[in-house]
């Protein structure tokens, strides 16, 4: 767990005191003497909790500091320590989401207890990152290829992928058409404790030279994962190059490991003679299956939401849109989802897309251009309608035209 604290206080003595207390309790401590220094420190260091004085240099109050942090997108928990606070200031801090307030003279034990409670709660929320034995659920863990594990199949996939992430030699990623293999493979590699190199090759880009470059010179001992896209479509020469490279450099103690992306299980591919004996034996049977999008309804919605918001921040993700997305088959999975989102967004330009734009994007043949002509938002139509009603109601009761 990351137990790193940033102390912001311009009183050197008190800052040292706090630093000592937290260091003794096993925390990494960074210090800053002003809000500005604090912001700089946050860019450099990986901080998980801020402990700050309520009165900072430049007349900055705790509430203002908190607001500036939030404005910069820093959502870390903050504890304030202060000599005096009036009731209004405390209410403001509560409103702004402060995690703790301590008044001098300081009760060291309750401050330490508070800090560890906050970090424990935060860790629980993050699903105990990296500890696959403890976190069996898969939910709340880091996503893999945008799959959060919200659905039953998605959860199952996340669990298996996490378990498989420590593989030594080969991992086989099996997924239907349109699966974002590369994203998934990179995320699986990213689960490893140490930052691993990850190289992606596919049909047309595999050569003996490129392979050997992976472990050349000073890189010879550095762990690397080679991701092979569309492995079943490699040419004979490419397969041979990989097999040779694997025989030469691979092995259980080697820094090299490989992820092969396939459309079907190796057994099936072998049976249908898509892959030969040699490759079949080389690949092994360490398979992780990526479910089709339609089998993971809750994940589909989460992924769609992220994709849509990346394209258009103001887009509304309402029940109607959700129902529409769930009713589609998504035979080409992620790739199809991404292209539908882009199409809907471009149809709606310059306004955010609505359900009718997605309907049109999903079924280009039926897109009735005329229904898309009206670029006014529902909100504007609502106001317009209310104005008409107001006039009509006034006319009804007064008997006069407006």
């Amino acid at each position, binding site marked *: 767990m990351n137990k790193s604290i940033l102390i912001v206080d311009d009183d050197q003595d008190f800052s040292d005191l706090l630093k000592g207390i937290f260091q003794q309790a096993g925390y990494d401590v960074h210090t800053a003497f002003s809000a500005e220094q604090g912001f700089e420190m946050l860019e450099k260091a990986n901080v998980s909790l801020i402990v700050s004085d309520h009165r900072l240099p430049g007349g900055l109050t705790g509430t203002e500091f908190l607001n500036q942090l939030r404005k910069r997108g820093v959502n870390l928990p903050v504890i304030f320590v202060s000599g005096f606070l009036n009731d209004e200031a405390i209410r403001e801090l509560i409103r702004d989401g402060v995690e703790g*307030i301590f008044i001098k003279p300081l009760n060291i034990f309750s401050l330490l207890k508070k800090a560890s409670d906050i970090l424990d709660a935060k860790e629980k929320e993050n699903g105990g990152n990296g500890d696959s034995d403890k976190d069996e659920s898969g939910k709340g863990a880091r996503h893999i290829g945008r799959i959060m594990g919200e659905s039953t199949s998605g959860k199952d996939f996340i669990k298996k992928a996490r378990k498989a992430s420590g593989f030594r030699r080969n991992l086989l990623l099996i997924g239907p058409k349109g699966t974002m293999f590369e994203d998934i493979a990179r995320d699986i590699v990213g689960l490893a404790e140490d930052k691993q190199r990850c190289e992606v090759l596919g049909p047309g880009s595999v050569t003996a030279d490129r392979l050997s470059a992976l472990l050349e010179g000073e890189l010879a001992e550095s762990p690397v994962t080679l991701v092979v896209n569309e492995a079943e479509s490699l040419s004979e020469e490419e397969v041979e190059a990989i097999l040779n490279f694997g025989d030469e450099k691979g092995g259980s103690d080697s820094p090299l490991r490989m992820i092969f992306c396939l459309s079907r299980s190796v057994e099936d591919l072998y049976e249908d003679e898509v892959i030969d004996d040699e490759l079949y034996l080389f690949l092994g049977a360490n398979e992780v299956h990526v479910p089709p999008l339609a089998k993971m309804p809750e994940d589909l919605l989460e992924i769609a939401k992220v994709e849509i918001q990346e394209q258009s921040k*103001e887009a509304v993700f309402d029940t109607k849109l959700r129902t529409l997305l769930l009713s589609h088959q998504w035979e080409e999975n992620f790739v199809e989802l991404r292209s539908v989102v882009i199409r809907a967004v471009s149809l709606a330009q310059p306004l955010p897309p609505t359900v009718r734009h997605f309907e049109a994007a999903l079924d280009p043949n039926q897109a009735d251009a005329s229904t898309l002509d009206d670029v006014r938002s529902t909100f*504007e139509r609502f106001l317009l309608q209310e*104005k008409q009603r107001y006039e009509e109601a006034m006319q*009804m009761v007064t008997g006069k035209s407006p």
Partner: protein
Amino acid sequence: MSKPIILIDDEEKFAVMLHELLQGSGYEADYCLNPEEALVRIKQENYQLVITDYKMPQMDGAEFLQEARRINPDLPVIMISGLMNMPELIKVANIGVTLVLEKPFNIEDLLENVARFVKPSASEQATAEAMDMEASEISFQQEKVTVTYPSPASFLSDASNENKRFLETLWNSANSSRHLPFYTQHGAEVRQVAMEIMNWTGHEVCSDVVRIEFADTDKEITLNWFMDSEGFPGALLVDLRDVEWDDAAKEKFSDWVNFVETCGKDISMSRIMYVLPMGARFELSEIGMKEAHASMFSSDYPVLLSLRDRLLDTAAYINRFLGEKEKEAIGTDGLAQLLHHPWPGGYIELQEKLAEISRLSELAEDISTDQLSNVLHADVINEVPSAICLNAGTYLRRRQREYILLHRKPGEDLKDTVLRLGIDSDNVSVDDVLEDKELAFPGVLAG
């Protein structure tokens, strides 16, 4: 029925006032006078928000908060109190209170915060969707909603498209089903709905519609009344708006339906309407009931929206209850004032206050706007809002505010809501919209 908010205050008067305030703004809430009892209910129910006093005789707010956090660490808790000192404030801050409001508190402030935490309930969603549906279907050429029920309706106003849709759904259901649940708020025109149905089913319409509280449905006196009556009422209202919808209530509901279906009276022409609170969860499958009985229920439960969302119905009722003489007495400004009033007490409030205006017009030829204000705000505890200029602009800005609050996602910053809904950013700023100074699309007023 399961409600999203629980209020805790040992002072009954304050609890009731807050409860009414929330209800008037479309939020259903439970209230408790004892924090210990509240903790038990928090364990059982799936509340989205707690609003509590700090100083209470049984336990103080900090203890209560600690216990509530133990049950559900993520439950938002708003504390309303006038008597908290600094150590107390710090204590609750460190236990993770969500918000502390000082008494006397600003009502708008509270409501805005409630909107942050309480997810739109099913029927608020229905209101939001109805608002959107009306807006997206508007062809700007006054297209009419097609209806198949005998129109115009005779008792319930169907001047608004919302009520046309409500009646259309009810008409289709009433043709094939005997038991007809629908959602609405307190004060709504439930008797008029029943009268409409009596009219449709060929009964002589009496304004004395039989209405019973659900709590009374298993009382001997009630059951005997039904058995001793000559026939079964043509239309019967069963009010479930104040019911705690627990397992016992579900069982009682099933018993009641069983009684109706097997009482031996001729009920072939009778319709039984169930008035459900807005946003409640009413699932037939959760009520253990004979399949034959369940099949007598309609499948669509329409929502009779609150009067504030149906301006044309308000206008129709004003015309129904005020004659030319009364209208002259209050004048055009007075009529505008009636249309601008949000009618938190619904049709019942409207009817009472229009009757009061009639009485006043007997006494004097003119009724001043101040007099009218006093009638409209007679039951408000706080001061009567100062008279503001009433025109399409003020009305639209109020509706705009309601629209924005209704479409806000939980936890969303209101500014983001406005940006998401759309704004004519060349001509107006988000702040002006949120401060009720401008419309998000000022062109609407000009066009």
